[in-house]
């Protein structure tokens, strides 16, 4: 009886362990498959030359890399201040009433709304209503509003985790509300906000569906010179090469582009994970 039960336990536990390693295996398999399919064309030219649409072996993906960087910095510039500012108002300034709880709840749940829906929103508001056209600016704003709910949620959680004692001690010592927020609460909570923000940016940079709708293009011979220009981006470039390009080398170049993209998103994510890990160790409340 006992042994039978032990045997069952061993069997189940092996299944669980194997599942975990298969999960990790998928991560590494993805990287290996991309590497094997694409490494042969990655060289200095590929990373630094302009795209040649007629003969893709002659050009590089510099415009797509730069486009993704512009996009990333643009999204940071818009979403961090708006997201963190909103979180500060919600946690430090507004009264805890029903309206605030509804707003917090709505924002939390917006983070699960699919990116294609944000793409539709960006298309109607930024591209058409505000006449920004299909452009870098429209894409930055669309991806920013997709990222903002994640940043607000992470920030609110981080600000709320700062013990009330900290605020009370500071106020009791004669500091004003703003001084307390700026010198006590903000330094204690900001790492949490930034971690959430970086993870948000990593996801935003990998997004393709909204870009299809609001601004990325494939045929660009020049770099965008203003925010109202169309632009190239790594995920969209991968998508077009993988599905709509007739060159026999298209898949190899798609894999190489994807490899550059995944390197970027993995660097950002592992940076955020490292930051979070470090910060939790240091946190002493």
């Amino acid at each position, binding site marked *: 009886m006992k042994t039978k039960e*032990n045997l069952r*336990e061993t069997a189940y*536990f092996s*299944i*669980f*362990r194997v*599942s*975990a390693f298969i*999960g990790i295996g*998928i*991560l590494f398999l*993805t990287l290996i*498959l*991309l590497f094997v399919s694409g490494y042969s064309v990655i060289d200095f030219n590929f990373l630094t030359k302009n795209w040649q649409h007629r003969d893709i072996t002659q050009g590089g993906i510099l415009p797509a890399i730069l486009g993704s960087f512009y996009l990333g910095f643009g999204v940071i510039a818009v979403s961090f201040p*708006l997201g963190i*500012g*909103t979180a*500060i108002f919600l946690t430090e300034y507004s009264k805890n009433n029903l309206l605030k709880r509804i707003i917090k709840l*709505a*924002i*939390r*749940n*917006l983070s*699960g*709304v*699919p*990116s*294609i*829906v944000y*793409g*539709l*929103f960006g298309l*109607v*508001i930024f591209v058409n209503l505000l006449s920004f056209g299909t452009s870098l600016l429209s894409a930055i704003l669309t991806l920013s*509003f997709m990222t*903002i*709910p994640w940043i607000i949620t992470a920030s609110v959680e981080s600000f709320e985790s700062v013990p009330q004692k900290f605020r009370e001690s500071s106020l009791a010592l004669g500091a*004003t*509300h*703003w001084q307390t927020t*700026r010198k006590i609460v903000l330094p204690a909570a900001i790492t949490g906000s930034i971690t959430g923000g970086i993870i948000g940016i990593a996801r935003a940079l*990998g*997004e*393709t*569906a909204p870009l*299809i*709708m609001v601004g990325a293009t494939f045929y660009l011979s020049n770099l965008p010179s203003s925010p109202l220009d169309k632009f190239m981006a790594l*995920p969209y470039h*991968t*998508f077009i090469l*993988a599905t709509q390009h007739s060159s026999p080398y298209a898949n190899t170049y798609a*894999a190489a582009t*994807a490899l550059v*993209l*995944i390197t970027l*998103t*993995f660097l950002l*994510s*592992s940076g955020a*994970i490292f930051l979070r890990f470090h910060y939790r160790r240091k946190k002493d409340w």
Partner: protein
Amino acid sequence: MNSNSKALYFSENIPKWIFGFIATFTVAILLGIFVFLLISGLGTFKEIGIKEFLFGTDWNPNAFDTPAWGIFSLVVGTAMISLLALFIVVPFGLSIAIYLSEIASPKTQEILKPLVEMIASIPSVVLGFLGLLFLAPLIAKIFHLSNGLNALTASILVAIAALPTIASICEDALSSVSQRFREASLALGATQWATIKKIVIPAAKSGLIAGIMLGLGRVIGETMIVLMVAGNSRAFPHSLLDAVRPMTANIAIEIKEVVVGSFHWQSLFMIGFILFVITFFINFLADILIHKKSL
């Protein structure tokens, strides 16, 4: 008011006004998403009935004489992929969560959990691309099909995309079960497996369900993978090996070709609005389960 208290008044209130303005602006735009999708899509029902739109099986906006606007085939495509993906990913994700929370040493857990979460950083276009390159040919070979672009292939890849969500949130749920429960159970002579099955999992139930629901939301909204590997056929699907066109893929395919404000445009926004409502509601239920303090 003397100049000192005036300065204090401004230095205290200006930040408050600024943050108040930022918060109002941001919240207004975020709530505007709902409003604008609804306004842009509502025109759909001026010309066709809700029932015809939701349950018509024929989606053919560009037909020359009688265009058809039924999204049921698209909805079934989304449902097939979602259910099959959940069927694959739920046991898989739960197993990983149980291993990380209950069996792995703290050190192993500390290394493996971030790695599982890293799967979330694989852009879905990359999964779709690898699916086109490797999985679809494999599926075609196994089932003797002319190509492997179908609901099954899409489900497998979408399951991978949802894996980190489910594994990570379920792990959080299991880890947050008080250690005393486990100790009490073990002290009464229960095996570790019996403790997990009879004590830990029931105690973490609402968190586990929430994790699965968030995974479902992720699966329903996935666009690039299904766009690339589900086959894009508008025909009503009858088997898991049929090519399907889920709602998300349909929007992505058609939105660039339609005239702004046309009836076709409005109907695509209506599909987007339906996706918004479904995913928002699923998240809402999961949110309630997570914030309900069980035990």
